[in-house]
């Protein structure tokens, strides 16, 4: 049903960054533009008889009306649920009879509708995508039901410490900004969401210009366009705000907040603003994060907190590269009475790196891991579509993938140290803990 995927979205975005050209030729991204301005990006892959498509528009949760967090996510749910031509039952039966896997979800910047199909049902898949996108049903009864289910899911999600931590973290980082709430919304904000909110976002932002359709799989551009042109010809217009049209969030005072929850572990999130998708030092920032806590078992935090001290099962860091600076987060869970000990280790690692203690060897290992892992980042239709959607949506050059590995390898130790200087002063990070009292 609806997608509540704050974390997995971050992971997807994180992985999306990591692509680089591989030795064997990566299939080039083919580009076409429909008369209505829709940009189509395709990577052909004929090894499995399937096609994955994703239509991405600048209609993410940052366009939720103030206090109505979750509106864009509800819009996504509604678009996938039924259409003007078919009620939810007929729509579900029609899709299922063709084994079309259709879904929609909202991120902070964008709203996407995706379809996965066998090659043999590609015609129907294109028709389904067009119908979901261009013929919304706006059924009032369904809206009431889906909203009530989303509210219950939001209440249920309060059982998850990460959700509780994220709600606070985002409020601290973005007190007056569209990034200041979880895309799924909260119990309070969802209660205020109306069908008119959804229609408003759709009318203003869900437009053919500035939208990207990314496709990967067993199809050629010629065949694809032959299907797309008639299916999408009724779609028009320019969104009120383009993907890049977003205010830079003002930095906030770091704070320390505790959220009580009857758990055995404390979930701790350290957070500050990170780099935007357009940061000039993006690749240095990425390597910094990889060395710090983005590189799994080879990262410094994992080594110090888990491998050397056994304090956690996992500790990791990530930043979310959005049109404007997204959150940069370090996250861990540890038995409640060990919280301070674990945080102390984290802060020491940050302080050391901030002071320039990053070795050429660590940088070389991170570069090798990222560059060497490129092929794996591109080895499925689903991953290729994610990457192309990101490249298309944020307007990155189409040779981004071809140049990626060289740019990773070109990052110098001085640049990574400068990135550490920018980001890793531990006193500039807010700390949110969720867990039992008396930490």
């Amino acid at each position: 049903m609806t997608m509540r995927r704050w974390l997995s979205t971050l992971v997807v975005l994180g992985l999306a960054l990591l692509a680089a050209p591989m030795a064997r030729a990566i299939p080039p991204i083919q580009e076409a533009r429909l008369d209505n301005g829709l940009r189509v990006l395709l990577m052909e892959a004929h090894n499995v008889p399937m096609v994955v498509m994703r239509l991405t528009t600048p209609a993410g949760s940052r366009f939720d009306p103030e206090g109505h967090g979750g509106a864009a996510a509800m819009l996504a749910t509604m678009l996938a649920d039924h259409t003007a031509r078919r009620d939810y039952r007929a729509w579900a039966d029609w899709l299922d009879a063709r084994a079309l896997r259709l879904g929609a979800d909202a991120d902070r910047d964008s709203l996407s509708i995706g379809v996965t199909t066998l090659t043999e049902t590609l015609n129907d898949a294109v028709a389904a995508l067009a119908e979901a996108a261009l013929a919304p049903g706006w059924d009032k009864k369904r809206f009431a039901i889906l909203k009530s289910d989303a509210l219950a899911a939001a209440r249920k999600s309060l059982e998850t410490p990460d959700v509780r931590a994220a709600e606070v973290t985002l409020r601290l980082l973005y007190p007056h900004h569209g990034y200041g709430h979880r895309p799924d919304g909260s119990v309070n904000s969802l209660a205020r969401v109306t069908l008119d909110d959804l229609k408003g976002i759709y009318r203003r932002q869900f437009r053919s210009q500035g939208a990207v359709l990314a496709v990967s799989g067993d199809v050629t551009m010629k065949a694809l366009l032959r299907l797309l042109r008639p299916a999408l010809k009724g779609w028009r217009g320019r969104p009120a705000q383009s993907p890049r049209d977003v205010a830079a969030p003002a930095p906030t005072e770091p704070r320390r907040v505790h959220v009580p929850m009857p758990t055995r572990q404390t979930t701790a999130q350290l957070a500050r603003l990170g780099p935007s998708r357009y940061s000039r030092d993006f690749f240095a920032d990425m390597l910094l994060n990889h060395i710090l806590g983005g590189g799994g078992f080879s990262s410094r935090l994992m080594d110090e907190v888990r491998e050397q001290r056994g304090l956690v099962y996992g500790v990791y860091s990530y930043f979310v590269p959005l049109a404007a600076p997204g959150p940069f987060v370090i996250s861990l869970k540890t038995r409640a009475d060990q919280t301070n000990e674990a945080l102390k280790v984290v802060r020491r690692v940050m302080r050391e790196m901030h002071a320039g203690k990053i070795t050429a060897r660590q940088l070389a290992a991170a570069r090798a891991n990222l560059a060497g892992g490129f092929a794996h980042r591109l080895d499925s239709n689903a991953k290729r579509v994610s990457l192309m959607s990101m490249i298309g949506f944020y307007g990155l050059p189409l040779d981004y993938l071809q140049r990626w590995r060289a740019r990773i390898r070109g990052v110098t130790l001085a640049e990574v140290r400068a990135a550490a200087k920018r980001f890793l002063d531990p006193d500039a990070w807010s700390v949110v803990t969720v867990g039992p009292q008396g930490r």
Partner: protein
Amino acid sequence: MNIHRFLVASLALAWLAAQSAVAEPAASVPRLQTATFANGLKLVVEEDHAAPVAVIEVWHQVGGRDEIRGKTGLAHVLEHMSFKGSTHMKPGEYSKRIAAMGGVDNAFTATDYTAYFEIIPSEHVDEVLGMEAERFARLTLDAKEYAKEIRVIMEERRMRTDDDPNSRMFEELSAVALRLSPYRNPVIGWMQDLRRLTIEDVRAFYRRYYVPGNAVVVIVGDVDFAHVKRVVGRTLGRIRKRPAPPRFRPVEPEPLGSKRMVARLPGARLPMTVIAMPVPAWRPGRNDREAAALTVATEILSGGRSAVLTRRLVDEGRKAFSAGAGYDPFSMDTDLWNAYGMLGPKQTPEAFERAFWRVIRDMAAKGPTPAQLAAAKRRIVADEVFAQDSLYLRAREIGEMESVGIGANRRGRWLALLRAVSADDVRRALKRWIRPERATTGVLLPKKTPTPHRQRRHHERAGGRA
């Protein structure tokens, strides 16, 4: 772990061969190539040269089911310790070397098996096979490393189970629903057992179970079979042959009557209901129609946008905000079939259960409609093709079918069985297996605590500078 998988095994090959309407790409469809070495180790390879990437997996036919009572969690602890050093590799070095190649490595443990995997640029396959052989046969199992790692595992248990009310309830429900089956124990182990395990337990378990006759090496991706066969022959294929101990396979008794358990947990905010009962896994040649029928029935109830449980219980009945069901035909033995309902503030477990059994009774009486049956089969087949998109999932399916004793070469047979399922088969399977008097119902309820909202605001105000 075991219950939540509805991904059934797959192969585009079988599907394409069977669907005459579908043409060409047969040439690019992968096929399995296998070899068995003198020490009993088996190799299964699926070549795919679309990208210069390979997945290597080493599957051991040992898991939670092989632990003795009081020592649950041991198979998983050994999995963790396998990253903590061997004769020629320091603790943590294995993963560092994989990372340096640009690869990813990890492992997973289940009741039926333990598996290690690497996703790597294919140029490094030979080297990694050598590393796997070293890890297989030469673990250090150092006491100091163990002392740290057992703490990591306890944190893993707290994170996955103790602090997640739904998981915690499901863990307990499994123990209540099953009497002898090893699926009644959590793979990660009961916390009281983890506290008492020792490195000696781990060493004994390792010596007894990590033997080549118990293992299958699966490689999917950009490799040449003849070449990797040679490399495995001089690495993993050289490990000394030792007897493979028999596996613990008790026969789960038929339930005597319905059971019910209620868990009131402080972390729970809304109720959840799970209805579970033992059902047979697929035993090729012995219960083909039954296992296939249960699979199709579960897909009709829980798969796709038109899932019957969602439609009847969520959209129409308003008895839950989310509902579904799960069945794993690729377990070693009788396992739990389950249905769940996530309940909103005004929805009660009792009303959900009544409505659920009404849905089951209806379908057991009337059977699915021809459209429901056809769509479910089509989705299952399509999902198997979609799964081909991921090298990792492909390797995992092969390893799993090998490890539970079905055999990956039966993937085509399985799809043929699914296609042959009739509406009557579905009715019969539901009537025979999915019945209230066989079921254990687990209910998760919130435990009353002071209103968290007020608390939270209060503490935010109190929060000072970092």
